[in-house]
């Protein structure tokens, strides 16, 4: 009897559970988008702020959860997620230089727009993105694989209290025969010779602080800092008439480091321009805290703490360097590098996402015209839209904004190739030897060029 009762009870329980599960299944499925955003430069804060707006508008049916992920592990995370098709995140912030590596795993946004025309914002204004940003951040092998999110150009930060000091200006003119003046809006960019002179002057031409002082912070740590900073020096020659004659026009997929037929352009056997650029880089390094130790963060620190007079870094560093608690707060300004270099990020959708429609709605909102301006005002997020870059009111209040539009007019770019991490690694080791004195610049460049050519060859095979 008892057994029978227990059996009946279990049967009843099963029936109730099955009914509840069925009823739950009948309910409309809630969508929770998972978004991975690089944690530095306030990028994840920006994405979070827009996620809150998004959740307010579309929640609780569709919600967004933002996870900040450090620069150093973001590519690893993406590659693992994409290759295992686990769909851990629906949306990623993708550094444009990684597009060659992960581009195949990103959704063609045009496909989403075609499939769900109802979600396309008619006010979005694609023309508001500078062409170079659309070509580099948003396009891969003819597909639109992301929307430009954060602009990045290597910028020259400097101490305006030093460069505008009348006593120093007079001494500089006396020593170098021309005026000490950092280029502002509408001015010509500095030449590397001028940058060298100013760095030398503030290293040993004038005593401007107690204790050690350096003219400039030059990053040359192995990896992205070395590859990007050398591009500023090499791009200067690469894009000159002499460079165009020697290497041909720059191929956007191969970037400044390659000839237009895909050979390594800094190879001394093709031209001496690579050696010239490396010598400029090494010579400028004499006025810096030891460049080989300086990555992006460690090169900003000596400038922020008032030890160096200038600093080559991403525009996104402005808020932290000019923060109210910074020792150089209110004393700094920005100018254009002789040849800027392009960094920056898009937001892209994982091909394995189950929610392409909702993911597109979010990235569209994140990169809209209004939110681009809002994010710059709230988080100093370096804008990707011309309307924000040239906004008069914003420019009047933000002395770091003016460089963004002119920097994009003539700027060096990295290769968008899947083997970029290999190129970066070998350059770090081989050109690193030029910095440590183990190799002469010409030998190092020759070795690096041969290595790069063989990597390119293996990629093509």
């Amino acid at each position, binding site marked *: 009897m008892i057994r029978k009762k227990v059996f009946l009870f279990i049967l009843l329980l099963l029936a109730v559970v099955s009914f509840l599960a069925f009823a739950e299944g009948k309910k409309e499925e809630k969508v929770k988008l998972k978004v991975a955003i690089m944690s530095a430069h306030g990028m994840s804060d920006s994405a979070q702020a827009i996620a809150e707006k998004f959740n307010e508008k579309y929640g609780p049916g569709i919600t967004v959860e933002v996870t900040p992920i450090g620069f150093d592990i973001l*590519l*690893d995370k993406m*590659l*693992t997620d*994409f*290759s295992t098709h686990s769909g851990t995140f629906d949306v990623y912030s993708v550094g444009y230089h990684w597009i*060659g*590596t*992960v581009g*195949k*795993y990103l959704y063609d946004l045009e496909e989403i727009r075609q499939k769900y025309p109802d979600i396309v914002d008619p006010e979005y204004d694609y023309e508001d993105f500078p062409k170079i940003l659309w070509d580099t951040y948003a396009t891969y092998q003819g597909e639109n694989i992301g929307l430009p999110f954060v602009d990045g150009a290597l910028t020259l930060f400097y101490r305006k209290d030093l460069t505008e000091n009348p006593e120093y200006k007079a001494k500089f003119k006396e020593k170098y025969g021309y005026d000490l003046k950092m280029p502002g809006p509408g001015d010509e960019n500095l030449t590397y010779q001028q940058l060298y002179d100013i760095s030398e002057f503030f290293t040993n031409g004038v005593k401007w602080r107690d204790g*050690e002082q350096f003219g400039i912070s030059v990053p040359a*740590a*192995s*990896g992205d800092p070395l590859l990007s900073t050398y591009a500023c020096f090499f791009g200067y020659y690469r894009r000159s008439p002499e460079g165009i004659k020697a290497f041909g026009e720059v191929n956007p997929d191969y970037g400044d480091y390659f000839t237009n037929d895909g050979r390594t352009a800094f190879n001394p056997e093709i031209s001496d321009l690579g050696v010239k650029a490396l010598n400029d880089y090494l010579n400028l390094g004499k006025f810096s*805290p*030891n460049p*080989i*130790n300086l990555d992006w963060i*460690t090169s900003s620190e*000596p400038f922020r*703490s008032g*030890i160096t007079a200038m600093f080559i870094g991403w525009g996104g560093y402005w808020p932290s360097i000019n923060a109210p608690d910074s020792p150089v707060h209110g004393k700094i300004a920005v100018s254009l590098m002789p040849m800027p270099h392009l960094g920056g990020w898009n937001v892209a959708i994982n091909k394995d996402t189950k929610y392409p429609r909702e993911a597109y709605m979010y990235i569209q909102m994140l990169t809209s015209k209004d939110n681009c301006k809002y994010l710059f005002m709230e988080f100093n997020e370096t804008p990707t839209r011309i309307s924000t870059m040239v906004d008069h009111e914003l420019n009047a209040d933000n002395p770091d904004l003016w460089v963004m539009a002119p920097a994009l007019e003539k700027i060096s770019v990295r290769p968008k190739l*899947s*083997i970029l*991490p*290999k190129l970066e*690694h*070998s350059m*770090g*080791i*081989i050109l*690193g*030897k030029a*910095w*440590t004195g*183990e190799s002469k610049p010409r030998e190092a460049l020759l070795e690096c060029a041969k290595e790069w050519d063989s990597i390119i060859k293996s990629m093509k095979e």
Partner: protein
Amino acid sequence: MRTDNIFDKYAKQILIVPSLVILIILIMYPTVYLLRMSFSSYDLTSGNPPAFNRIDNLNILIKDKYFWQSMINTILISISAVMVEFILGLSLALIVSGIKKSIFFKTIFIISMMIPPIVIGLNFKLIYDQFGPLNGIFKMLGFSEVGWLTSPGMARISIIMADVWQWTPFMFIIILAGLQSVPDEYYDTAKVDGVGGIKMFLFVTWPMILPSITLAVALRFIEALKLFDIILMITFGGPSGATETLSLYIYRTAFRFGDLGYASFMAFTMLILLSIVITLFLRFVGLRKRLEW
């Protein structure tokens, strides 16, 4: 009845099954998978699935100068670090074993082992900075500053110093345990025979603590060959690849270059090399031990 008999007969085998299954899942499966991947071409950036490529990865490895450079770096760094850790650990253990209430020292010494290597790496990165505390002390004492991470030689030494700081206590603790397990009677007998000082150490203490030393050195050497976290934080393999160890290069190949097939092959090669080195080491120590006895 019959069931009971079967259970009694095969009780050991039956009881071992759960552990065996877990072991197979946790150790055998990944190892077999690694082996399979080692003979495959699997480029994560291509979007293609793994494809069997026979011994292509071996051919790549033979010609890969970065692999051999990282192998040399690994051997240089690990041997140097373990040697210094052994000498310091042994010295500290000998000193502390003579102190009656040594719990304070034991506690202090093992703190570094409890700190995650990533944190240690970050701290040492700051310590070695051009404007960091170490150079500050040097300058205060009237010396010129040292480029801790700027030349290949100094960068290797700096990495070794960080590893030594963290892992010397491990040597110390194990050797100390060995020292404290030597019965006092041995020393008393030796004293009666007129043995003392260095002879006492060489002929009484050393043979008795040799198993502990072997264990400590072998374990440390295995760990040192896998050195990764500290380097990732302090130098990321620089300058000019001087501190790029095998683990770091394998990590880079797998997760930066996306070449999982070749990275697996390198990992498998490292596993074999590690096994050979440790076996040789243990045999060498065992042989020496027999000769001394």
